[in-house]
């Protein structure tokens, strides 16, 4: 069972005289959790922005479920079932947690242009929205404005909102960044729970999270793929160690 769900070939993004992503050939297999790691400035987030069409690539192609999505707009990509999260938590701050999830449900189920109808027609999505909130452990916070939730809970809300679209593939940009240990454990457990029937590509800095969670890892440095494989393979790769620890630290490790 090694179907490719997402594939890039020669993906390149140049900003004036600076190549952020350079000829990346990435293959993500259906049903796996795939990590994209690398030091700061390696081009991970740029890669994400290219995949979700928030940035147009300079060269290269992107195929999702066998379909060329290189020229599509970001909203269209989301509609195909490739939905992303953001590095900085992306919630609608003045809407309640329940309304946040409802905004996503509403998109999938139509009626979003109905300006002549009362807001109360959205109540029919409440049951499903509560289910999703319960799933991420936010059941009791349904009526709290999202902006007032603690950081870890905002990230959980973001995942609930994303799941409301029932996407085939999730792109998570540093889901555990800036979290306490307890929160990290909760998010990891959550990702394990929601992976059923989905493919996940995530950027992650926390290597212990990657070790426990991800099936396959791609290491980026300076916009290029440095290594690829499971955690055991990648973590023994000399080049990866050097890139992560720097050449000096690398030599210290040999002493």
């Amino acid at each position, binding site marked *: 069972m090694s179907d490719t769900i997402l594939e890039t070939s020669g993906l390149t993004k140049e900003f004036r005289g600076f190549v952020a992503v350079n000829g990346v050939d990435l293959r993500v297999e259906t049903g796996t959790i795939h990590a994209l790691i690398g030091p700061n400035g390696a081009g991970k987030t740029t890669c994400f922005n290219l995949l979700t069409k928030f940035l147009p690539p300079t060269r290269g192609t992107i195929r999702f479920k066998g379909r060329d999505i290189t020229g599509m707009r970001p*909203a269209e990509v*989301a509609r195909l079932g490739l939905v*992303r999260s953001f590095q900085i938590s992306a919630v609608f701050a003045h809407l309640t947690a329940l309304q946040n999830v409802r*905004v996503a449900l*509403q998109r999938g189920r139509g009626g*979003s*242009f109905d300006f*002549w109808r*009362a*807001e109360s027609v959205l109540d029919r999505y409440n049951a499903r929205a509560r289910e999703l909130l319960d799933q991420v452990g936010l059941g009791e916070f349904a009526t709290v404005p999202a902006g007032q939730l603690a950081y870890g809970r905002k990230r959980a809300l973001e995942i609930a909102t994303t799941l409301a679209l029932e996407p085939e593939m999730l792109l998570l940009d540093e889901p555990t960044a800036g979290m306490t240990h307890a929160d990290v454990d909760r998010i990891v457990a959550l990702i394990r729970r929601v992976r059923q029937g989905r493919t996940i590509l995530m950027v992650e800095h926390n290597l212990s999270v990657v070790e426990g969670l991800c099936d396959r890892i791609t290491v980026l440095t300076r916009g290029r793929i440095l290594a690829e494989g499971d955690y055991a393979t990648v973590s023994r790769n000399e080049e990866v160690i050097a890139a992560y620890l720097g050449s000096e630290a690398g030599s210290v490790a040999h002493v």
Partner: protein
Amino acid sequence: MSLGFSRAQATAMVVMVAFIIVGPAVLYPVFLMKVLCLALFACAFNLLPGYVGLLSFGHAAYFGMGSYIAAWTAKYWGLDAEAAIILGGLCGGALGLVFGWLAIRRQGIYFAMITLALAEMVYFFCLEAPFTGGEDGIQQVPRSPLFGIISTQQDMSLYWIIAAIFLGGFLLIHRIIHSPFGQVLQAIRENEPRAISLGYRVDDYKLLAFVLSAALAGVAGAAKSQVFGIATLTDVHSQMSGEVVLMTLIGGIGTVFGPVVGALLFGSLETYLAPFGDWVTVTQGAIFVACVLAFRRGLIGEIGARLKLGL
């Protein structure tokens, strides 16, 4: 209330309706009709900066074109009042569709500049085009009967019609804000990239909001031309675009009742300070500066914030 008003808003609504009913017993009805037209214009305008986060500097184009079209069709085609006003609204909306389509591709100051530039083009069109009567405008527009039977010759009979148009427009705007569509607008305003990542084609939503705002501005302009029996360059001039920004700002951007209060204040200044000539503009300028410096949320916005109420 079934209309989706909070208790505070329902109270404010009762006060406003009471004022509209009692008003003509105390004040000159034509003055009140002018205020109602301006208030509808300001409420329509407020939809964009208040609920979508777009600041249009060219709303006089839709107001003025609505006014011209209604005046012209009432005078030369002999259309009934309601038909002329609906046509004015459609014209504002159609213009909004084209201009909005061009402008929403840009954000912030660039959006404002594009709307301003397009509105200036409309102004020059109205100055030169033969049907508008140039500097003279369209004068002596007859007050045509409503549905061909209800006479609008008397100020008081026209007053109730204008009041009904204002209230209808006001309630529609309130409904738009509190609709499934309004919910998406709020999501877009709070976090546009996130809304896109959920699959929303945000430009389509912005455009619909723009068209609705322009159409209601057109209705307001059309109603005004019925009240005064004229349509002139004043209604389409950039000064009018500035004034509607001012009214909304003084009352409170993003509040439901703010633009109404702003229009009342603004209309009063213009009418009752008229004998002092240029002092009108000076006073308006002073109020604007005071508003921006001292209470940026506007009158209603400040009151709402003090009382912790959403008005």
